[in-house]
């Protein structure tokens, strides 16, 4: 029990402390971060905490966490295909493991284990490939077979199913789920405590560039002078980057999710099926949170579709036939900016002082702590940390794409 709560319990009418404050827009900030999601706020926090850079504004056009940070299905894992991906996300998981303590805010990271199912021989091979790469990189991850799958997740149908038999699964014990909003609020609070200005309802309308260098930002609340701008706007990244005349290799596509009514706990692991395009977990409150692959066409619209609900219901029942009476309570959508190689784009752009933290596709939330930390280091030192070098924008021109694409497409 925290002292804070006990104090709050017996303090009678005294208002609880503010998590973050409101400020007038200053004329100048050392660093302006566009996007008040988990990435932007984490970067602000690490800038202040690790580099002593506190003259930072985080500009959010809506409320903090309104975008992908509050719309994802809150799955954390590091069992990627490439060494670059595994190393990067492994650091992220390690930061997440310490995050409640670091932020003094329980983000409820539940490392309950993560299962990726394989339904074909090719799928089994890909899972084995990932397990091997993971193990070599020191990440707990292994291939398991139906008996073990059944004992971890009794409700899965591991029978000799005609259409999508479960042949094996990649089991990743440290993977799990988290309370995504809490991550946003925790970072926002600790950034605020260190002097960062969080400006909600402040939309960027333009970026000033002189002689190839950023000089300021126009907002709906006025002009800000600055020499360093970080674009951490995820789905909207292309629209912000277009303000400095740079084109990105991104396509914005909605990603949808839904949640059921609360049920007594019966699903203890996160279950993912690539072939069936579904992932499912049960929150601590008992709801099933379910997501699918990105929508079939690009859009900035966050209106969900019926086709998504129909598809995911069919696929969930394919895996868990006993859930046919379970009711969907709510659906929603977020937007993702998909890069061609399913890997982020982080760091410098041709415009001096304009940095990007984009290309986060469907895997951005998982990376929030490490993305924030490495970008803070880049901003503070001017040197890209080794972990994010593979993710530079110039890789596309250099024909040096990241290999995560290898596993993502082509399914013979």
């Amino acid at each position, binding site marked *: 029990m925290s002292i804070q709560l006990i104090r709050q319990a017996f303090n009678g009418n005294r208002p609880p402390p503010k998590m973050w404050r409101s400020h007038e827009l200053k004329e100048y900030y050392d660093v302006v971060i566009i996007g008040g999601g988990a990435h932007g706020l984490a970067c602000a926090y690490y800038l202040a905490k690790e580099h002593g850079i506190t003259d930072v504004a985080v500009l959010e056009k809506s409320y903090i966490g309104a975008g992908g940070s509050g719309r994802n299905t809150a799955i954390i894992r590091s069992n990627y295909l490439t060494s670059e991906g595994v190393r990067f996300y492994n650091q992220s998981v390690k930061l997440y493991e310490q995050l409640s303590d670091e932020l003094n805010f329980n983000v409820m990271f539940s490392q309950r284990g993560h299962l990726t199912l394989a339904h074909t021989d090719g799928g089994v091979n890909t899972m084995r490939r990932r397990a091997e790469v993971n193990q070599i990189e020191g990440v707990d991850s292994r291939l398991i077979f139906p008996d073990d799958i059944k004992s971890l997740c009794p409700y899965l149908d591991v029978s000799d199913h005609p259409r999508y038999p479960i042949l094996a699964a990649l089991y990743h014990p440290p993977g799990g789920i988290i309370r995504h909003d809490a991550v946003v609020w925790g970072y926002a609070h600790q950034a605020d405590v260190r002097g960062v200005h969080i400006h909600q309802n402040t939309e960027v309308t333009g970026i000033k560039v002189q002689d190839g260098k950023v000089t300021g930002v126009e907002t709906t609340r006025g002009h800000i002078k600055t020499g360093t701008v970080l674009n951490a706007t995820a789905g909207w990244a*292309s629209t912000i980057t277009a303000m400095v005349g740079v*084109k*990105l290799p991104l396509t914005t596509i909605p990603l949808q999710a839904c949640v059921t009514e609360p049920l007594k706990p019966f699903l203890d692991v996160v279950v993912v099926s690539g072939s069936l395009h579904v992932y499912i977990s049960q929150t601590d409150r008992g709801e099933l949170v379910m997501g699918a692959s990105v929508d079939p066409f690009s*859009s*900035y*619209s966050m209106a969900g579709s019926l086709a998504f609900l129909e598809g995911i219901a069919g696929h969930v029942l394919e895996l868990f036939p006993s859930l046919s009476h379970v009711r969907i309570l709510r659906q929603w959508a977020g937007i993702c900016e998909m890069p061609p190689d399913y890997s982020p784009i982080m760091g410098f752009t041709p415009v001096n002082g304009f940095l990007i933290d984009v290309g986060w596709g469907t895997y951005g939330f998982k990376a929030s702590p490490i993305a924030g930390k490495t970008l803070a280091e880049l901003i503070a030192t001017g040197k890209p940390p080794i972990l994010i070098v593979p993710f530079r924008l110039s890789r596309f021109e250099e024909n040096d794409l990241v290999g995560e694409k290898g596993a993502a497409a082509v399914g013979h």
Partner: protein
Amino acid sequence: MLLLTCPNCGDRNVSEFRFGGEYGPRPKDPSATSDAEWANYLYMRHNVMGAQTEWWHHSDGCGLWFLAERYTRTNEVIKTFPYVKRDA
């Protein structure tokens, strides 16, 4: 569900179609492009939040590839039209 007008078959549910991405023609003379120009063609996208010209394929219908202009924020389709080769 979005209704899309196939220039051949008329109004159909969008689920009958396959999205073909933002319109961006292949360089006329690929051998004369620089690496940067080629990368621009392969990877870079306007990705506008607004009216976008894009390819669609009536894959569950007549098999026509055609173009649409659509507002990407609202998904409102402004118009659809068959592709016409500009110059041979």
